C-alpha cells in the first residue's frame, strides 16, 4: 500500500458542504485538499447599496449556526464607522447573547458532532443507545443556550432583536431572572461535560500553532479587544488586513488566510484559551486542570475539552450578567450615520469573525468585506492532516478516513460561512 488515496466525498457532521482528498505516494502525503463545494452566495456583493441598519440581519444569513456572531461583528463595525460606543447594560446584554450562542454552538459540537468520533459512533443518535444520559444532558444544556438567545433575540436562529446601537427591546429584570435556575443547572452540567470530555482518549498530537484571538484587558473576549497571537501579533482590529492576507496557494484553489510573512494560523476555542487563560473564572481553570489540560494546550483533539470549559465559562458569565443587570432607559444608543470605514471583529464560537464596511454619508454600504473563522482555519486544517496521516498509514482505509474526518472536526468547521468567498470547486469523485 505505497500509494493510496483517502477520499471523503461529503464530510458529515459539519455545517456545509465539503470534501476531503488526500493522496499518498511512496508512503508520503503527496497532497491534502479540503475542498469546498458549497455554492457561492455573494453576500459582499449584494450588501452594496443596502443601508447600514440592514447589515446585521442580512449577514446573519451567512450562517444559521452562529448568526449572533455575524450580527455582533456587523454592529461593531457600523458603530466604529459612526463613532458610537455601546456601553453599560447594553454591552452586558450583548455579552449575554453571545454566551447563549457559545453554549448552544459548543454543546452542539461537543455532544452531537464531535464526541461520536471519540466513542466510535456514526452519530449522536446511535451514541444515545449506550450513552443516553450524556446525550440527554447535552440536549438539555444546548437548550439553555438557545433559551438565552431566544429570550434576548426573539428566536434561536437568526435572532430579530439585534440592531446597530443595541436592541429593539431590552428584557426586564424579571424576564432575565427566569434564566437563573436553568443556568445554575447548566453550570453544573457544563462542569460534568468538562469532566466527561476529559475522560475521552486523545491521540498524541501537539502542534506548534500560531494562535490568533481577541484579547481584552478585563475579560475573556467576546466583542472587543486587540487581535493578538502567541508569536508576536498585537494589533488593533482596524489593522487586521495589514497583517492578515488571503493567498491563493499552488496545491489548492481555495483562498487561505495567513499572517503576512509567517503563514497559516489557528483561530477558535483553542486559540482563545491559550491567549486568554488568565481571564477565565477560577472554577473554569480548575475544571480544565482536572480534565487534564493546563494553561497551554496545543492538541487540537483536546479542543473538545476547551469547548466544554468555555461552555462552563459562558454559563458563569451569563449568571454574573443576569444577577447584576439593571434595565437601561433606552434599548439602543442613537445612531447618526456618516461617511467612513468601520471595522468589527468578534469571537464567533469557531474563532474571530472580521467585518469591514465602507459607508457613504447617508449610511449606505459602498463595499463590504467579511472574513469568517473557518476560512482562516482552512490552511491549518490541511497542515494538521499532513502531520497526522504519516504515522497512521498502516491503518485500514475506513479507519484512516474516519480519523481524518475527526481531525477536521476538531475545528468545528462551518463551511456555510466560509463558502461565500472560497472558490467553488465541484468535484465529487
Amino acid at each position, binding site marked *: 500500500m505505497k500509494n493510496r488515496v483517502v477520499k471523503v466525498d461529503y464530510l458529515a457532521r459539519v455545517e456545509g458542504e465539503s470534501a476531503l482528498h488526500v493522496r499518498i505516494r511512496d508512503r508520503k502525503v503527496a497532497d491534502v485538499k479540503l475542498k469546498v463545494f*458549497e455554492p457561492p452566495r455573494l453576500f459582499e456583493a449584494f450588501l452594496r447599496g443596502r443601508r447600514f441598519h440592514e447589515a446585521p440581519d442580512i449577514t446573519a444569513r451567512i450562517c444559521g449556526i452562529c448568526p449572533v456572531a455575524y450580527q455582533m461583528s456587523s454592529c461593531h463595525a457600523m458603530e466604529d464607522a459612526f463613532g458610537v460606543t455601546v456601553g453599560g447594560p447594553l454591552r452586558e446584554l450583548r455579552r449575554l447573547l453571545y454566551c447563549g450562542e457559545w453554549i448552544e454552538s459548543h454543546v452542539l459540537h461537543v455532544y452531537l458532532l464531535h464526541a461520536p468520533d471519540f466513542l466510535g459512533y456514526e452519530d449522536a443518535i446511535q451514541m444515545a443507545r449506550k450513552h443516553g444520559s450524556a446525550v440527554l444532558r447535552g440536549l438539555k444544556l444546548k*437548550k439553555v443556550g*438557545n433559551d438565552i438567545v431566544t429570550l434576548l433575540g426573539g428566536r434561536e*436562529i437568526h435572532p430579530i432583536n439585534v440592531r446597530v446601537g443595541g436592541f429593539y427591546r431590552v428584557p426586564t429584570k424579571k424576564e432575565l431572572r427566569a434564566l437563573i435556575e436553568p443556568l445554575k443547572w447548566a453550570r453544573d452540567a457544563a462542569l460534568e461535560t468538562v469532566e466527561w470530555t476529559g475522560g475521552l482518549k486523545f491521540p498524541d498530537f501537539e502542534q506548534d500553532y500560531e494562535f490568533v484571538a481577541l484579547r481584552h484587558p478585563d475579560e475573556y473576549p467576546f466583542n472587543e479587544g486587540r487581535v493578538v497571537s502567541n508569536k508576536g501579533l498585537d494589533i488593533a482590529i482596524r489593522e487586521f488586513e495589514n497583517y492578515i492576507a488571503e493567498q491563493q496557494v499552488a496545491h489548492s484553489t481555495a483562498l487561505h488566510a495567513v499572517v503576512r510573512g509567517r503563514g497559516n494560523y489557528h483561530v477558535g476555542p483553542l486559540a482563545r484559551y491559550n491567549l486568554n487563560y488568565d481571564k477565565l473564572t477560577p472554577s473554569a481553570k480548575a475544571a480544565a486542570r482536572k480534565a487534564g489540560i493546563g494553561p497551554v494546550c496545543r492538541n487540537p483533539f483536546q479542543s473538545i475539552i476547551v469547548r466544554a470549559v468555555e461552555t462552563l465559562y459562558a454559563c458563569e458569565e451569563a449568571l454574573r450578567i443576569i444577577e447584576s443587570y439593571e434595565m437601561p432607559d433606552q434599548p439602543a444608543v442613537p445612531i447618526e450615520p456618516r461617511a467612513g470605514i468601520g471595522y468589527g471583529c468578534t469571537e464567533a464560537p469557531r474563532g474571530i469573525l472580521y467585518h469591514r464596511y465602507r459607508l457613504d454619508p447617508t449610511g449606505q454600504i459602498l463595499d463590504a468585506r467579511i472574513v469568517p473563522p473557518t476560512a482562516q482555519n482552512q490552511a491549518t486544517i490541511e497542515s494538521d492532516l499532513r502531520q497526522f496521516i504519516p504515522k497512521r498509514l498502516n491503518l485500514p482505509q475506513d479507519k484512516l478516513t474516519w480519523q481524518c474526518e475527526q481531525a477536521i472536526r476538531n475545528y468545528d468547521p462551518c463551511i456555510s460561512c466560509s463558502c461565500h468567498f472560497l472558490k467553488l470547486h465541484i468535484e465529487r469523485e
Partner: protein
Amino acid sequence: MAATRKPKLAVWKFASCDGCQLSLLDCEDELLAVAGAVEIANFPEASRAVVKGPYDISLVEGSITTPHDAERIHQVRRASGILITIGACATAGGIQALRNFRNIKELVPMVYPTPAYIETLNKSTPIADHVFVDFELRGCPISKHQLVETLCALLNGRKPNTPTYSVCLECKRRGIVCVMVAHGTPCLGPVTQAGCGAICPAYQRGCYGCFGPKETPNTAALSALWGQLGARDGDIMRAFRSFNAYAEPFRRESEAHEK
C-alpha cells in the same frame, strides 16, 4: 410506507446557511422522539452514516444556484416519496436571490479575485422551479414547531396544519399592540404569512417578511400606508427585497418602487 418498518427521512442541502436543518437539531425535546419514529437515513449535518434510498420523506433546504445543483435536485426528487422544501431559500430562492435583480457578471468579481473559476447560475431559484414539491415550510428560518407538526402529520397520514393567513392574526391573538398603528413603525405583517408567532412586533419592531407573502397579499395598499408613514420608494423596495425577494408578490412590489 409499510407498517413493519420506520419511514426513512433524508435531509438535503443546496445553497443555504444550514439554519433550517439546524432547526431539527434544535428540537432538543423532540429530537430523540423523532429519531425513534423515523429512520434518519441521510442527514450529513448530524451523521456520517448514509442509508441508501429511496426515502419516504425528504427535507430540502437551500436554493438552486449552480448547474450541478440544478441536476442534483432531480436525483433527490427521484429518490424521494414526499419532498418538503424547508425555508426561504428552498421556497423562494433566499437572500442569494438578490442576484436575480442584478447582473451576475458584475457581482462575482466583487467577491472573488478570480471570477473565471466561479461556476454559478445567473439566478437563485426555488426548488419548485425545478421539480414537483409536495409541501413547503416557509421562514428564514423555518419554525421548528411547524417542522415537528409537519413530520407528525405525515407520520399519521393527515394534512399538516400550517396557516397561510397573515402575521397580523398571530399578532392580534398574542395581544400585541400594533406597532404600525400605535407607533408608526413600518411593518410587513399584513402581507406576510404567519408561522413565526409575530416575533418582531413582540419586540417592538416591524415584521420584515421572513415567512414570505401570505395568500393573496395586498402589497400595494401596504406600500401606500408605508408612504404615509414617511417611507420612501427606496425603503419600500428594499423592504420587499430581502429574504423572500424572488417570491412573486414581493418581487412585483419591489420592482414597482425601483427607480
